[in-house]
């Protein structure tokens, strides 16, 4: 049908223009416009817009001022439902069906890379969102005309909602790649629907979007001190830019995570992902540093808090996945590493493999501590807290991985090691108190030396922990963690030394 359009100049030009688009976008949009989901969403959006407009008009005729703000809030709620629930579910299904119907293999053998496939799917959702937003544009314009809301607020709110909707679609695409099993995939889909509806119902999407614009880097956690991105009304533009950067960087990482899941295990699945997460790490450092540079009276504990919490969570997640990667690499990756030219030769720490993963994490930890040392007194509690965060991450990710590899060498797969680490944390947290109760009948509960293996209690009460006589134990645990990282690096070097060309049977 598409290929038999009359040969007019306009059609020819459109056909040529479509070459600029991703093939996935072209296909998805063709399928979308014939699908029930889009038609229902479109019709319901229009009906909702008409109802809101009717109610608002009635309200406006009573002489009440500023009814535009109410209309806009209602329209934002409608658009939020479409953008944060309907579109992500569509994205989830788009990639899930591709895997379930096994058409993904057919696309994989073309010249399209997994990254282009994921981006294509995301862009198709962007087209859908843009169409639905455009459908409600006349009603949004009406809200402006009725007064009570400014044009910049409308613009920024719509842009923010559009961005976060795309982010939700990227997250949905990643989730759809998590399992090849129909049952697990259906479970993930069900969990996602429940979560999205819960979020929508519980938090109120309009408020969520507004908060995402005005919120500071602490995300509303902890004591209230002014958001560094929002000290005055003139900062609306910069706060939007900051939010957009956070949204885009994390969205890119979600795309890279989805790509990582779609790539064959024999391909280089790490380099781009590691670069993406490194950029995210730099962003976290910048977010922590920015308020101290902007406002000299910004509390130093707040800087340490944001750096420690955000940076620590980032490092822990990255370490969990990087250090546990396979030590041996596939033939194709070895070949690519050998034939790397130009700037690719300098991407050492981003290269795949558990050994490079350990180096990658250690480099980020060094940067994390260097930033801390620059802004904090190196003998302060705050700085030693940052060191302790790194030490516990090394201990809980490095030691189990090293022991696992030493004990059962090649038989522990990455996901087994990761599951082991995730199990170890609650064990370390609960076991001391459980043993105490078992032997003495006293549950205890007061923080003491036996809790030194519990990273949460130790780090949350760090000020007390540093004054305890058994403080040296936590230092010892940290040293063990760092040594295990060094051992993993050595183990990885040995694994690659004979240029083994095996270990592709892991999937």
């Amino acid at each position, binding site marked *: 049908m*598409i290929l038999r359009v009359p040969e007019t100049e306009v059609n020819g030009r459109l056909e040529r223009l479509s070459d600029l688009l991703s*093939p996935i976008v072209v296909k998805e949009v063709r399928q979308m416009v014939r699908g029930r989901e889009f038609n229902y969403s479109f019709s319901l959006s229009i009906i909702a817009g008409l109802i809101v407009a009717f109610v608002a008009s009635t309200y406006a005729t009573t002489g009440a001022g500023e009814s535009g703000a109410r209309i806009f809030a209602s329209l934002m709620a409608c658009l939020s439902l479409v953008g944060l629930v309907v579109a992500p579910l569509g994205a989830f299904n788009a990639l899930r069906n591709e895997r379930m119907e096994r*058409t993904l293999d*057919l696309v994989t053998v073309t010249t399209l890379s997994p990254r282009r496939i994921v981006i294509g799917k995301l862009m198709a959702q962007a087209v859908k969102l843009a169409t639905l937003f455009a459908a409600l544009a006349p009603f949004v314009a009406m809200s402006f005309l009725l007064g009570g809301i400014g044009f910049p607020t409308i613009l920024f709110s719509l842009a923010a909602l559009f961005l976060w909707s795309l982010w939700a679609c990227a997250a949905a695409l990643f989730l759809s790649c998590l399992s090849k099993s129909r049952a697990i995939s259906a479970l993930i889909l069900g969990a996602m629907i429940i979560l999205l509806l819960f979020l929508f119902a519980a938090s109120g999407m309009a408020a969520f979007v507004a908060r995402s614009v005005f919120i500071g880097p602490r995300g509303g956690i902890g004591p209230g001190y002014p958001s560094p991105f929002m000290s005055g009304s003139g900062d609306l533009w910069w706060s939007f830019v900051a939010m957009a950067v956070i949204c885009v960087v994390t969205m890119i990482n979600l795309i890279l995570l989805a790509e990582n899941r779609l790539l064959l295990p024999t391909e280089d699945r790490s380099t781009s992902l590691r670069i993406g997460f490194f950029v995210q790490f730099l962003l976290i450092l910048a977010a922590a540093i920015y308020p101290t540079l902007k406002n000299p009276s910004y509390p130093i504990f707040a800087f340490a808090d944001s750096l420690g919490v955000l940076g620590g969570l980032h490092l822990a997640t990255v370490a969990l996945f990087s250090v546990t990667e396979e030590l041996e690499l596939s033939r*194709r990756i070895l070949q690519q590493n050998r034939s790397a030219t130009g700037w690719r030769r300098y991407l050492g720490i981003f290269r795949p493999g558990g050994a490079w993963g350990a180096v990658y994490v250690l480099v980020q930890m060094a940067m994390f501590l260097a930033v801390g040392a620059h802004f904090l007194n190196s003998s302060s509690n705050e700085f030693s807290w940052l060191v302790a965060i790194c030490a516990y991450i090394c201990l809980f990710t490095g030691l189990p991985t090293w022991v696992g590899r030493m004990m059962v060498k090649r038989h522990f797969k990455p996901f087994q090691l990761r599951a082991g680490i995730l199990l170890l944390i609650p064990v370390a947290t609960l076991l001391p108190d459980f043993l105490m109760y078992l032997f003495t009948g006293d549950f205890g509960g007061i923080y003491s030396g036996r809790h030194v293996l519990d990273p949460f209690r130790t780090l949350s009460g760090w000020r007390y922990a540093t004054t305890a006589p058994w403080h040296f134990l936590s230092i010892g645990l940290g040293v063990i963690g760092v040594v295990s990282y060094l051992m993993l690096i050595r183990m990885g070097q040995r694994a690659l030394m004979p240029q083994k060309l095996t270990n592709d049977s892991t999937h």
Partner: protein
Amino acid sequence: MLEVNALVRNFGGLRAVDNVSFKVGKGQVLGFIGPNGAGKTTTMRILATLDLPQDGDARIDGVSVVEYPHEARRKTGFMPDYAGVYVSTTVAEYLDFFARSYGIRGAARQKSVEGIIEFMGIGDIRDRQVESLSKGLQQRVALGRAIVHNPQLLILDEPAANLDPRARIEFRTLIRELAADGKTVLLSSHILTELSEICDEVAVIEKGRILATGTVQDILRGLRRHRILSLRLAGKNEGIERFLFEQHGILKVHDAGDSGRYQFEFEGDDTAQTALLQRIVGAGFPVLEFSAQDAGLEDLFMKITEGRVQ
């Protein structure tokens, strides 16, 4: 055109592909036969760059599938044992999508899709949704998809499965036309009679190992040193069995009952076979038919394979 060299692929402790090597020339059709679980699909997925061997390599027109998978993909068309269709997509759009995915742009893409529609004879169904087509038509469209970027090598995994006899014959014709057009075809099938009619050569694989390669007749010749000859006389002749036993080169005689048909194993070349016929006629036996039994691919398959799976 296709050179497979000592491919090895393990899945955990299982060796699915064990030192597999073979070659296929340009414009040739190679049938890949073996029981279920023999390693056919794994080998084909390696050649289609969907999997990577632990050892060995395969070169498609000189391009290594291990080192340069992206270049190899441009030279290869892959059709797995399922159609792989999209919902809410017409035949023309389906082919158009894959042409775009192979990086074919503008007028070249339109020309390519139109060419495929014409070649595959699917002009009548171009605006029908792919999912609503019969299996035979879906297979046709799938073959069109595999060749939309004009590959030099076609890898077809069980292409004739689930097709009715007419669709099979049409499919066979298409494959032969593609081979005549210079495309190298590697296809697997369980329908051995089909393969014997399409293929120039076969490769028999079992438990991940190639057991034999070559033409069916060459392989059979290598397998058995004697021929099975068939003789039909006009009516029952009592003395024929004894006569045959007395002839040089005859190993075993099977009496076929009252029909006057006899089968016997004969060790000798064409000249010896001619001389034998002359002696039978000279001895006064009323010969109606005398022929060498035409051994088929099924005989070969049964002789070579043991029927064991991994």
